[in-house]
């Protein structure tokens, strides 16, 4: 059965005029989304330096409480938003996915910083997961290293926009057969198994870094270890001071 779109057809100017007279005109959907977007409770956890910026955002100067998102909950069962703030190591990734699975619907994810998005400067590390979006769906990607508190507030506002665009009739979490639990990766002999969840994420077709993956540093004639027994290289000679500058008119 097709459901009618519950969209307000009242003119914005009329609404404003009525508001001045003390009459509120709204729709159930608007009211519902207003409530949800004004009380996003993030989960209280941080993984690396981005968490420091997240803490700064929560403090008085930037004051995330202006957006109603000041209540950092220590339990995934009570939180609506997961801010993945920092590098996700392969050892930590299964736990992050498990926390996501434990969150109650509706749930949202913001990846904060380059590391959580794609590995950041540590992308070539053996221990670093190249982005948490390999295992869980992400709503807002927030670039930066780390993003400033203003950026996190902007990300939160973008998420609020997304929430405002959702309607009760079509929201996923009231539909039958919603699957938003994702299998938790396991520790393998070389890294995580699987390397990504193809349901959510797939590698790019063209990757200029591909040649570098899976290559050993060769031990042979080409590679040379530094010879510690040789005396250290002489310091670079200090360039001789330039010839005396032409005398300035003041001195002459």
């Amino acid at each position, binding site marked *: 059965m097709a459901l009618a779109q519950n969209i307000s057809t009242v003119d914005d100017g009329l609404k404003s005029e009525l508001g001045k007279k003390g009459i509120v005109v709204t729709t159930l959907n608007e009211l519902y989304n207003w409530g949800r977007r004004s009380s996003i409770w993030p989960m209280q956890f941080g993984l690396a330096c981005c968490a420091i910026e997240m803490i700064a955002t929560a403090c008085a100067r930037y004051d995330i409480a202006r957006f109603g998102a000041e209540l950092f909950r220590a339990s995934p069962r009570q939180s609506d938003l997961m801010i993945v703030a920092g590098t996700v190591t392969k050892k930590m990734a299964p736990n992050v996915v498990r926390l996501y699975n434990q969150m109650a619907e509706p749930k949202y994810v913001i990846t904060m910083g380059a590391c959580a998005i794609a590995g950041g400067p540590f992308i*070539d590390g053996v*221990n670093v997961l190249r982005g948490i979006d390999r295992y869980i769906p992400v709503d807002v990607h927030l670039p930066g290293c780390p993003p400033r508190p203003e950026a996190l507030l902007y990300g939160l506002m973008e998420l609020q926009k997304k929430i405002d665009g959702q309607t009760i009739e079509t929201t996923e979490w009231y539909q039958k057969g919603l699957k938003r639990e994702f299998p938790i990766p396991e520790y393998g002999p070389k890294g995580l198994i699987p390397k990504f969840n*193809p349901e959510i994420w797939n590698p790019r077709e063209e990757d200029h870094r591909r040649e570098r*993956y899976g*290559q050993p540093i*060769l*031990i*042979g004639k080409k590679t040379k*270890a530094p010879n510690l027994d040789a005396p250290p290289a002489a310091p670079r000679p200090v360039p001789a001071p330039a010839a005396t500058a032409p005398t300035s008119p003041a001195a002459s």
Partner: protein
Amino acid sequence: MKIEEFKTLLELKLPGIAFKQVRDSLLVENPSDLPKVAFFLKNSDLEIDYLSSVTGSDYLDYLESVYHLYSTTKKTGLITLRVRVKRDAPNVPSLVPIYRSAEFQEREAYDMYGIIYEGHPDLRRLFMWEGFEGFPMRKDYIQEDSEWLEPEDLEWLEKHQVPVTEEMKERAKTPRIIKKDAGE
């Protein structure tokens, strides 16, 4: 104290143990002499009582275990000791009985370089998980290609009923590691 003076002092006090100066550090030629040296440093007048760090390093021909020592009572240091071991038999006596602070540091060096500290009370991996194979900081470690699904990944995905495209299954059949001959 300069490293040259320090070397002469140690050679005088510990006859029979060969030392060699390597830049600003002292190489203990025979790794099995290391506990004797450390015991002497800690219990003599030098009072070198603080082992700040134990690290490994890979020089391709050999592995090194490097120790940084200070004295907190005499405010002296830094004294650097080195031990060289073969890549295929990297056994170094543990310093845990002498310096307790070596415990985690040696575990880290074992985890990353595979240097086996003999006599360590609990030599397990520290940063990587149990079941991880290989020593990732060694220069011949081959890192996995994390953009490429392998048969075990497909098996896991099938077990968890995650749909996988045929194209991806085909890709998994081709080997992902391109090995080049050493010394080309």
